[in-house]
């Protein structure tokens, strides 16, 4: 009988502790800076074009082969507005296949792709799985509207960027 009362005592002692749960859909947990959501492309606000040049290195290294990319000549380069000779033409990324392994971010030479570390990178459920295939417009939307202020993009083996999220505006300096 002693063991039973000890067990009851344990449950009683836990009753007085603070709850650790959050009411999820109403309250969103603050996500850490390094959170890996689904990948999105970044928008270059200086030239008003995507950073991506369509070099396909991410598509080649993707273990689940969820991307397909094509490249075209950059019309802005001909006008002398942009330094990029080539630019991405079509970019399809299937969120249904992506496993958020961060490899595309690591191999990208132009820092064009990041994993969305906000809640919008997690809550992407759709009623039809075909809607999970994102085109270039959809992938750039988050960056274009300016909600992607603080992406995590450290090179392999580099020093950390602090426990708390970086202050706003630092992304502009880094680029």
């Amino acid at each position, binding site marked *: 009988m002693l063991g*039973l009362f000890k*067990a009851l005592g*344990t449950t009683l002692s836990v009753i007085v502790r603070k709850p650790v749960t959050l009411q999820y859909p109403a309250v969103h947990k603050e996500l850490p800076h*390094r959170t*890996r959501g689904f990948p999105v492309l970044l928008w270059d606000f200086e030239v008003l074009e995507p950073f991506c040049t369509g070099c396909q290195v991410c598509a080649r290294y993707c273990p689940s082969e969820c991307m397909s990319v094509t490249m075209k000549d950059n019309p802005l380069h001909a006008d002398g507005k942009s330094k990029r000779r080539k630019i991405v033409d079509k970019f399809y990324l299937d969120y249904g296949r992506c*496993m*958020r392994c961060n*490899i595309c971010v690591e191999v990208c030479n132009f820092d064009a792709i990041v994993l969305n570390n906000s809640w919008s990178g997690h809550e992407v459920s759709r009623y039809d799985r075909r809607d999970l295939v994102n085109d270039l417009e959809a992938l750039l939307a988050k960056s274009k509207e300016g909600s992607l202020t603080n992406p995590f993009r450290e090179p*392999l083996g580099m020093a950390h960027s602090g*426990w708390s999220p970086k202050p706003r505006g630092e992304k502009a300096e880094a680029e």
Partner: protein
Amino acid sequence: MIIEERELETIDVYVNVGPQHPATHGVFRMVLRVDGELVVDLEPVIGYLHRGAEKLSENCDYRQALAFQDRTEYLAQFNAELCYVIAVEKLMGLEVPERAEYIRVILTELNRIASHLMFMGAFSADLGVFGTLFMYAFRERERMLDLFEEISGDRMMYSYFRVGGLAWDVPENFVERTRWMVKEARQGIADIDGLLTENEVFLARTRGIGTITAEQAIDWGFSGPMLRASGVRHDLRRAEPYSIYDRLEFDIPVGDRGDVYDRYMVRLEEMRQSARIIDQCLDQMPEDGPIVAPDLKRVLRPPAGEVYMRAENPRGEYGIYLVSKGADKPYRLKIRSPSFCHLAALRDMTIGHYLADAVLILGSVDIVLCEVDR
């Protein structure tokens, strides 16, 4: 007279458990033949979760293949990753910086606690104490997953260890935070201990159930807590030290009867030992330093050869057999999974027990079906 005999006649009934059944911890199927409530025969059916992780790895380069390790052993991802990266490092002859080794071992041991907590939660749910202990265990586990998320970026599929080191350095207050968390985890372990260990109901359910002797356990190829519960003092961290385990002090808990209760006790004690290891690592860890081997190429091409690396995972001996032909992709990658061997013995463990205990015995094996089917 003849009519009476016919009335007394009994037939064995086949009971199909799974593949979609909460007590099977995944998609595992048991076909039980029961005589009344006693299990007469049991046939485990596996293969529902086969995704070809080994074959897929052969089509991926060494960095990509790491991602499949997380998905193979989805409750102890850091342990599986550690085994894989050490295998590739052995092949390449890479030296890993000190700091990276310590961080690896800290995370691996934290993951071991998290995995055992998951066992405690699921096992107690099998017992019928759903709600209470499940929530206690998950409360602690969730804290660890939060830390893992802050370090690696994902709650479950970390891909944080890399061949030659780590992907990024740990955040700034990692040491203090881990210390605090180990303290909290000790409290959580004490809660589980207080709730179950001396509980008469628990003892009545688990003592003498699913017994496996030491000889049988060795014959079946058991490893990890299942083997130690049968009384064999064998731990790969001690028997074949890898990484920095030879510098650390810890005890190897063993059981004496090899029943379900001993398996629970061994895992409970192992969590405490893991906490002890983490404390030592945090004391010894270098403050600063590189976390990746200096001369690391972007595309890894290990020289031709083969290596077998085995590591002590929460479930037992996790082995990676890797064959390289000098290309950037593994020629062959074979995963030796502990749960597979344990499941093979399920029939021997279960026969003669009640149907309700069959679920309990399966729970005490602590299977991860992804790892069994690969």
